């Protein structure tokens, strides 16, 4: 039985040290980079997850909502543990644990049993169902299955069960987020549109954003404006809940009534045009009021754009407190610009985050040099290139779409930069290149509390500038010759 591959039996050998050294040097070369970029089938260290993870994040953002994975049990465990590790918070979610027989007979009985148990055990106000690979491949019909579950009275007829198809073999977590969010809104708002009713509220959608600080920041900005609002998919309390000795499975989220009434809102703003595109398109066609889709507000210009949009939609001037905040942000940028000016950066992550990072770096006079999205589109490439083209600091920057972090490693080794911006997964390439990694993305597994520090808005400018500039100053202190070790920097 041994040696089923027909290969010759060989002695155990050690790879010679010289050969190890040769290859270790070779993987940093231009020659290697070319081979690396010639890959067509192998993906190494991608910077994106699969759709259902995003769907789960969207579901967590609603009051009393239990995310429910229709598919294999293992998938649910993977999504949950990823969210646990990033937020260092519980992420209750269930699966209907499909196995081989599910693959043969379809997943209806699993789904039905699962809904009945989950409803009884975890007492949710809503169960948000989304798929992993298996039911997508065998073609399970969620619409029919859920209708049948209600007919069989396994769950009450009026109980909201939004569902989304989130196949892992296309798109990424940002698409799954979008798919689940639109389904939740469709489900909750059904029949809730009232002719002539206007809540007077702004509906704000943050997009796929795993930074609880950002959500709190949006709320603070809207409170400063004095505008009534509904933040849709609000994970701020869900993934940043207090420890008072009581475990609450659903410690926050957008109230379901508010979400239902969002269809009668005065206006809706969706942030992150890539992770909210389906949702926004549906809202535009179905919601009352005015609508706008804007990029995530990283840096001054994009925050200005958001504030002006809100101001216009509600006929209210930008409040003095935010004007002062803007002034302080600009002040700290001018104070600190020397530490970032001309510094080259490699960036990777989700489309909406990348657009934000690039815009902000250009405002600081820094150079976004290698910009990489491992699941992007031509549209994103064009948009990023347009951003670069519009600034002298964007010259020389290159956009790489559908490349991975092993490509990025080749880029930073052959064409060095001063720092990397991305998620935890980039720590290996940053270490090899001996440069800092600024963890402004998702997931962050290896630092504490970063998801609690807002990156958007003027407050975000303060946090990003402080983090980056102080790290650069630390590097000077840690690496300079003794005679250049000075009191002031």
């Amino acid at each position, binding site marked *: 039985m041994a040696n089923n591959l027909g290969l010759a039996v060989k002695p155990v050998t050690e790879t010679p040290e010289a050969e190890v050294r040769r290859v270790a040097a070779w993987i940093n070369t231009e020659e290697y980079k070319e081979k*690396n970029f010639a890959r067509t089938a*192998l993906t190494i260290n991608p910077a994106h997850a699969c759709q259902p993870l995003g769907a789960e994040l969207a579901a967590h953002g609603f009051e009393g909502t239990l995310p429910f994975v229709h598919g294999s049990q293992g998938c649910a465990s*993977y999504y949950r543990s990823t969210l*646990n590790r990033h937020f260092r918070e519980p992420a*209750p979610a*269930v*699966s209907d644990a*499909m196995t081989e027989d599910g693959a043969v007979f379809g997943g209806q009985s699993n789904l039905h049993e699962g809904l009945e148990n989950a409803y009884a055990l975890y007492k949710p106000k809503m169960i948000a169902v989304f798929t992993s690979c298996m039911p997508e491949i065998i073609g399970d019909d969620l619409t029919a299955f859920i209708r049948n579950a209600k007919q069989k009275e396994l769950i009450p007829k009026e109980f909201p069960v939004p569902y989304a198809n989130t196949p892992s073999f296309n798109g990424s977590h940002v698409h799954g987020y979008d798919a689940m969010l639109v389904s939740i809104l469709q489900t909750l708002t059904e029949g809730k549109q009232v002719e002539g009713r206007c809540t007077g509220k702004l509906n704000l959608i943050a997009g796929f954003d795993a930074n609880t600080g950002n959500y709190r920041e949006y709320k603070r900005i809207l409170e400063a404006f004095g505008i009534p609002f509904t933040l849709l998919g609000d994970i701020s309390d869900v993934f940043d809940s207090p420890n008072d000795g009581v475990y609450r499975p659903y410690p926050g989220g957008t109230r379901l009534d508010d979400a239902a009434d969002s269809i009668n809102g005065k206006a809706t703003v969706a942030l992150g045009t890539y992770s909210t595109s389906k949702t926004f398109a549906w809202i535009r066609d179905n919601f009352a009021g005015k609508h706008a889709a804007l990029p995530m507000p990283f840096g001054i210009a994009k925050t200005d754009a958001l504030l002006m949009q809100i101001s216009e939609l509600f006929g209210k001037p930008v409040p003095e407190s935010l004007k002062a905040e803007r002034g302080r942000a600009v002040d700290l940028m001018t104070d600190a610009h020397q530490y970032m000016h001309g510094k080259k950066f490699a960036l990777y992550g989700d489309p909406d985050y990348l657009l934000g990072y690039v815009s902000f770096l250009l405002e600081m006079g820094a150079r976004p040099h290698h910009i990489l999205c491992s699941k992007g589109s031509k549209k994103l490439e064009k948009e990023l290139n347009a951003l670069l083209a519009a600034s002298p600091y964007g010259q020389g920057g290159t956009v790489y779409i559908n490349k991975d972090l092993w490509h990025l490693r080749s880029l930073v080794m052959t064409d060095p930069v001063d720092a990397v911006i991305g998620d935890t*997964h980039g720590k*290996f390439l940053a270490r090899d290149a001996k440069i800092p990694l600024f963890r402004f993305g998702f997931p962050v597994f290896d630092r504490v509390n970063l998801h609690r520090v807002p990156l958007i808005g003027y407050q975000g400018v303060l946090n990003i500038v402080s983090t980056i500039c102080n790290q650069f100053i630390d590097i000077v202190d840690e690496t300079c010759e003794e005679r250049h070790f000075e009191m002031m920097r």
Partner: protein
Amino acid sequence: MSKEITKVEGITKESTQQMIDKVLESYPEKGRKKRAPHLAPNDQASGCACVKSNKKTVPGVMSARGCAYAGAKGVVWGPIRDMVHVSHGPVGCGWYSWGTRRNLMSGINGVTNFAMQFTSDFQEKDVVYGGDKKLSVLLREAKELFPLAKGISVLSECPVGLIGDDINAVAKASAAELDLPIIPCNCEGFRGVSQSLGHHISNDTIRDYIIETREFPEPVGPYDIALIGEYNIGGDAWSTKPLLEECGFNVKSVWTGDGEMEKIAATHQVKLNVIHCYRSMNYMCKVMEEKYGIPWIELNFFGPSKIRESLRKLAELFDDSIKEKVEAVIAKYDAQMQAVIDEYRPRLEGKKVMLYVGGLRPRHTINAYEDLGMICVGSGYEFAHSDDYDRTAPEMPDATVVYDDASELELEQFAHVLKPDLVASGIKEKYLFQKMAIPFRQMHSWDYSGPYHGYLGFPIFARDIDMAINSPTWNLVQAPF
């Protein structure tokens, strides 16, 4: 080595059964029927399983289980450092399992170790037209970019099996073409009921494709052993392997923590297999016993009592020179271990711990807590079989609760009743219990600490348990207002 019957004050078979019945009340009838056989009070004297195990997870119940792929990639194949492990299928499974099990590796990343994520990143067209062609191109690319890789494993994810791709044929053709071991592992996540089947499937592929394909150049010695079921979590193997070497053994290969493909392939030449994680690798010990006549022994490297007992058990199988060395090693470390116990035991005496983990830990660690004066009041496994529970019964105090594939709700309810001073479980349970102001340690990953195995590990384990239970932060949970 049977222990005396141990009791915990306030816990009787009746009180435990009452607690179980109360939890079961929350379930709908069908769910209750399915869950009931998985919860029971321990019967320490019987020495056999009191619960049913290795059954399908009940749909809609918040289980902590993983899947066959997770067992294959995360546990068995993933830790082999000098091979490229391809997660064949959509991007997610590989991404989620990337670097999250803490099986540390020597070597240079991308040169001689490959603790990276390799995937075929299946797209819709691969599902429609099949991914075999892509796989053969991918294997060529991997060989070209990573010339020092000693082999490639292909770990299939759900869609691969569902669409009927023949990765075995691709692996065979590519292995010949590239003159490289390429191992197909049909470990799709939908197979079986938990990660346990993934261990078994992986073991079968090691049997079929790896073992006996290499030979050690030096002659076989009387003390040549292999360390099986040691995954180097937080550097565990870097504690256990030197310990065995100090006792006079030549540890020829480690399965699979910081593992090397060729040494694993030559394991058929050792004299004895020493197994730590029985659940994940007992199949392979049995195969090697039948096929090559290699005996095997189960050991436990958690805490000084079990280490001492284990080393003596091991020495019994060898000659006087080993016995002398083992006694010398025990004597040398006993003093150090006593110092650790003297330091921590006063702060931990009588504290109660609830365990819920996978593999071997729900039973293997019980005595390590007891070394520190603690009491185990509940234990259970995510993916055990009844032979694991047989081995658990004598280790756990009588009448304490045993839970198989526990749901989050069950664990939470048990904790309300048992009021443990520590819960030792996984990442999915960690923050729930911490919100309940119950100290917690992650026992899959040592909570980013470690090693916990061997004499090097025990001081770290003791420090961490003390740190968790006696952290002043717990005193802040109740606000004074």
